């Protein structure tokens, strides 16, 4: 199979595991390893990280052999917009209040859809924010200011 290395599923799966596993071993070198009798805080993570790295090496090898493609599409738009909307929500809810945080989150998430319609989403964001404010802040009494400084 002539899959490009960039689209090789198991190859990247293996790389992912190696990064996580080797990273864990690297960080855990600062924790006492201990002995089998008295395991230190580093024992368990180091062993796990080592096993993950081994699994990663195996997958890289089998990926290079089989060449199975990842296929499908990376939904880059959603992959960027959804986490970004969450980050903004987290940033805004402490500083600006519940309402702006919700509006940004809902509107920002909705933009990730390819069927995004500006007016519909705007109205929907306002409706849902009002609904959530009514349910969570008024009815359930969560202690969040609707708008900071108001």
């Amino acid at each position: 199979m002539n899959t490009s290395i960039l689209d090789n599923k198991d190859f990247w799966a293996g790389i992912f595991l190696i990064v996580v596993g080797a990273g864990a071993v690297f960080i855990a070198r600062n924790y006492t390893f201990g002995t089998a009798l008295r395991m230190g805080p580093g024992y368990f993570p180091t062993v796990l990280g080592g096993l993950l790295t081994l699994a990663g090496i195996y997958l890289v090898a089998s990926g290079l052999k089989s060449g199975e493609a990842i296929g499908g599409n990376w939904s880059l738009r959603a992959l960027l917009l959804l986490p970004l909307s969450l980050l903004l929500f987290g940033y805004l809810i402490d500083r600006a209040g519940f309402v702006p945080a919700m509006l940004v989150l809902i509107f920002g998430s909705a933009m990730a859809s390819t069927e995004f319609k500006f007016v519909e989403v705007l109205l929907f964001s306002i409706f849902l924010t009002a609904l959530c404010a009514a349910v969570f802040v008024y009815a359930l009494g969560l202690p969040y200011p609707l708008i900071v400084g108001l």
Partner: protein
Amino acid sequence: MEIFDNLIFGFSVALSVQNLLYCLIGVTVGTLIGVLPGIGPLGTIAILLPITYSVPPVAALIMLAGIYYGAQYGGSTTAILVNLPGETSAVVTCIDGYQMARQGRAGPALAIAAIGSFFAGTVGTLLIALFGPPLASIALKFGSPEYFSLMLMGLVAAAVLAQGDIVKSIAMVLFGLLLGAVGTDVNTGVQRFSFGISELSDGIGFIVVAVGVFAIGEIISNLGDPEERRIFDTKVTHLFPTKDDFKRSIGPILRGTGIGAFFGVLPGTGPAIASFASYMIEKKVADDPSRFGRGAIEGVAGPESANNADAQCKFIPMLTLGLPASGVMALMLGALTIQGIQPGPQVMTMRPDLFWGLIASMWIGNLMLVVLNLPLIGLWVKLLQVPYRLLFPAIMAFSAIGIYSVNNSSVEIYLTALFGVVGYICMRLGFNLAPLLLGFVLGPLMEENLRRSMLMSGGDPSVFFTHPISLAFMIATAAILVVMVAPAVRRRRGDIAG
């Protein structure tokens, strides 16, 4: 009979107004998300976990369980009516169920699915009541080595039996165990992998991982391949199956229940495997296998019973041993922990109201589903018209509020975003994420029991092989590995998956 006393006690708990109400909420929400493709019980339960903080433990568990088995019902409704499996467990039901609907027999198909599920649910309830207490009393005698071996067996079985590549599943278990190690080490107080972030010193929040991976990651993935929506035009006229339908369905329902119960207690096997197995067997034992795929009622009755029995019996290892056999059960364990209840065999003796109340509520919930759902089918199907482009931002909003409400911590929101990305990347690379959650839940317990065992034995690992019960688990673990990794079985797994 003690079991009847226990069940009656359970019903007295489950029949309280509050618990009935939470049961009703649970099965209604479950049916709703079962009908809607793109959001499953895992994501929903994860999102709703924070709400359960303020609810008494019994009611919380009853509601979450209701979502879980309610989703199975909802999933089969859309499978039959619009050939759209709301849940993976209903994929098989599409084959013959949708054909029946096209022949104008949607009513009987729905009714048989409901009756089969109800029967299987009843048997499942009885099985838990029968096998729960003896299992728990054995488990109460477990020491650290036994627990470690049991968890090892559970994790290996979960990884090996899960769909997809075995190495990748095992890797996800390991990754989950590693995530479980984040935070303060209980024995020494050392901060591990907390990168100086004070929010991480108690470990990564269970809800953060669950919502990130199963709600956010799933949405990103759904937006990547938008599925087309079919327009619903089937009319459900007469609901009642004919005498012939009943006669044909009894065998498949009984066999399906047995198959589902068997797969149910095995870790790692989702309800999809049980329903597949049931469908294959029904096709094998049928006089005229060619009817299958053209609207054979056996092809609905068997798999639908199997997936419900499976769903119900998944509770046995969770409630008696504290061992989650699936992603949803890991969430249930998480819910118990959030409520301050240490999962394990002692739950049955320390919180009998919880154990027996939950069991009884499952039977009541199944009854509610039959009684409430059949007349409401039209309403559920209408819900399919809610466009996903509005549904997913709402899910995002509920997820964010849910997580933030736990600790009022922005950092946990940021972490959820991170886990959403990690979850999506893992999905794209062919990793199955349920084993990750199992590893994450069991990680701290497993490390604790490993360290304690080694202290007890003076650093000699043979302790796992000299204690007879532990040895049995170890042999079982080895057997699972040998059998499942054998190439022939691997090939067959490929066939089932494909």
